[in-house]
C-alpha cells in the first residue's frame, strides 16, 4: 500500500524543507530567548510601568494564535506600516515574538520561585540588581527552567510548520508541494511526522539528561 519511492525521488525537496525548518527553529528559539529574557526581567525590576509593558506583551502574543500572528505580520502589517516584509522576516518575527512571550513567562516564574532569602543575602552583601540576577538568582533559576524551556522549544520547532501558510518553504510546505503532484499524501505526511520524531525525540532525551544533571547540582 505504501509506496515510499515518492520520498526517495523527491528527497532533495524534503531535505531543503528540513534545512529551512531547522534554520527557522534555531533562529526563532535564539531570538525568542533574548526577547523572553528582556520581557521576563523587565517584569521583575520593581518598576510598575515596565512590569505592565511586559505583561501586555505577554498577554498579546500568548493569546493570539500563532497562525494569526504570522498572517497578520505578512499580509496586514506591510499595508499598515507602508513597508514590504519578506517571507523570511515575517516568519522569523512571528515565531520569535510568539516564543518570546512563553519564554518570558517561564523565566518570570523561574526567578520568582527562588527563595526570597537569596536576594536578601546578596543585597546584604552590597550587590546591585544586575549582580544579584547574574550571579545568584539566574544561575539557580535556569536550572529549574530547563524542563519548561525544553518543552516550549519542542513546541516551537513544531510550530514552524505554520510558516507554510505564508509560503515559507519549510518541511511541511515542501511536503504539501510534493503531495500535490504525486498524489501520495499518506507517504508524504507520514514521512514528515517521522522526520519530526527523529528530530525531537533526541532533544527530549537531552533535556531529561540536563534535568538530571541540574538535579544533582541542587
Amino acid at each position, binding site marked *: 500500500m505504501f509506496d515510499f519511492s515518492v520520498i526517495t525521488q523527491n528527497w532533495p525537496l524534503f531535505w531543503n524543507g528540513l534545512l529551512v525548518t531547522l534554520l527557522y527553529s534555531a533562529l526563532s528559539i535564539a531570538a525568542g530567548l533574548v526577547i523572553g529574557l528582556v520581557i521576563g526581567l523587565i517584569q521583575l525590576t520593581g518598576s510598575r510601568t515596565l512590569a505592565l509593558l511586559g505583561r501586555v506583551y505577554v498577554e498579546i502574543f500568548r493569546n493570539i494564535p500563532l497562525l494569526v500572528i504570522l498572517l497578520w505580520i505578512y499580509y496586514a502589517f506591510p499595508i499598515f506600516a507602508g513597508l514590504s516584509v519578506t517571507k523570511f522576516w515575517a516568519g522569523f518575527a512571528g515565531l520569535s515574538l510568539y516564543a518570546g512571550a512563553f519564554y518570558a513567562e517561564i523565566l518570570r516564574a523561574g526567578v520568582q520561585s527562588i*527563595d526570597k*532569602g*537569596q536576594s*536578601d*543575602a*546578596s*543585597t*546584604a*552583601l*552590597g*550587590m*546591585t540588581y544586575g*549582580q544579584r540576577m547574574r*550571579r*545568584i538568582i539566574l*544561575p*539557580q533559576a535556569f*536550572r529549574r527552567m530547563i524542563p519548561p524551556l525544553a518543552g516550549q522549544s519542542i513546541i516551537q520547532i513544531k510550530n514552524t510548520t505554520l510558516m507554510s501558510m505564508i509560503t515559507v518553504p519549510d518541511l511541511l510546505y515542501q511536503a504539501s508541494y510534493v503531495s500535490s503532484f504525486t498524489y501520495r499524501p499518506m507517504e508524504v505526511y507520514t514521512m514528515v511526522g517521522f522526520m519530526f520524531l527523529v528530530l525531537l525525540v533526541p532533544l527530549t532525551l537531552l533535556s531529561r539528561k540536563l534535568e538530571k544533571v541540574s538535579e544533582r*547540582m*541542587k
Partner: protein
Amino acid sequence: MTHVSNTSAPLLKIEALRLTFGQRDVLKGVDLTVNKGEVVVLIGASGSGKTSLLRCINLLNMPSHGRITIDGEAIYEADTKARDGNDVPAKTVNRIRSRTGMVFQQFNLFPHMTALENVMEGPITVKKADKEATRKEALDLLAQMGLQEHVGKYPRQLSGGQQQRVAIARACAMHPQVMLFDEPTSALDPELVGEVMKAMVDLARSGMTMVIVTHELGFAFEVADRVIFLDEGTIAEDGPPNEILLRPTHPRLKSFVGRFHETADLLRPFLESS
C-alpha cells in the same frame, strides 16, 4: 563581658525611624545609637519589630521616615519626593550597605556555590577584589570557624550549624563595620546552637560591633554590652544586661524575662564553658 569601649564613637545611628507595611505601623519612631565595638542584643515578643528594625539598617526594608547613619554617612534619609522614598542615591546606599554584614535565621547560603565560593562571592563580585588574595582570606575565615574540612562542600552537604558558620564567614569576608544577626540560632537543632554561639562570642571578643536579635537570653547576659527590649515597634527598655534581664521594670519585659529566670539554671553549664 567588658569591651574596650573607650572609643565611644557612634558607629550606627538610627533616628526617629518609622516603618509601615501598608496600613500597619511596625516601627513607631525608634532612636538607637550603637558605638564602635559595642554588642547590642535586641529582644522582644514575636511581632514586636525586631527583624524589621534589623532589616531597616541595611535597607532590606525601606523605612517610611527617619534617618540612619553608618560611620558618619547616611544610608537612609526620609524624602517623600524621591521615588523610593530615600533621599540617599542608590549608588551610595550600596556602598554604605557593604559596611554592614548580615546573618539570617535561615542562613540563606547560595546553594549553587561551595562554602568557599560563598565566602568569596562578596569580595569578588562587589569589591572586585583580587581572586587569589580573597581565596586565601576566605580559607582563613572558614578555618577560624572550624570549617577547614568543609570548604569544598555545597550548603546541602553541611549541617545547619556548619551552614550558619559559613554564613558568618561570608559576612565577615566583606570586612563590615557592624554585623547584624537575626535569630542566628533559631533554626538550629539544640545541639548545634553552641558552635554558632561560640563563633559569635569570638567575633564579639575580636571587637566587632554587633546588633543581635536572639531569644538566647543567656547569651545576651554574657556577651551583650546593652540589651534593648522592643515592644510594639518602640524601644521600651535599653540598658546593661544585668539591669534589663535581672531587674526589669517594664511589665511586659518582666513577663518576657520571667522565662529566662526559669531556664537560666539550664543554661548555666553552657555559659561557663564559653
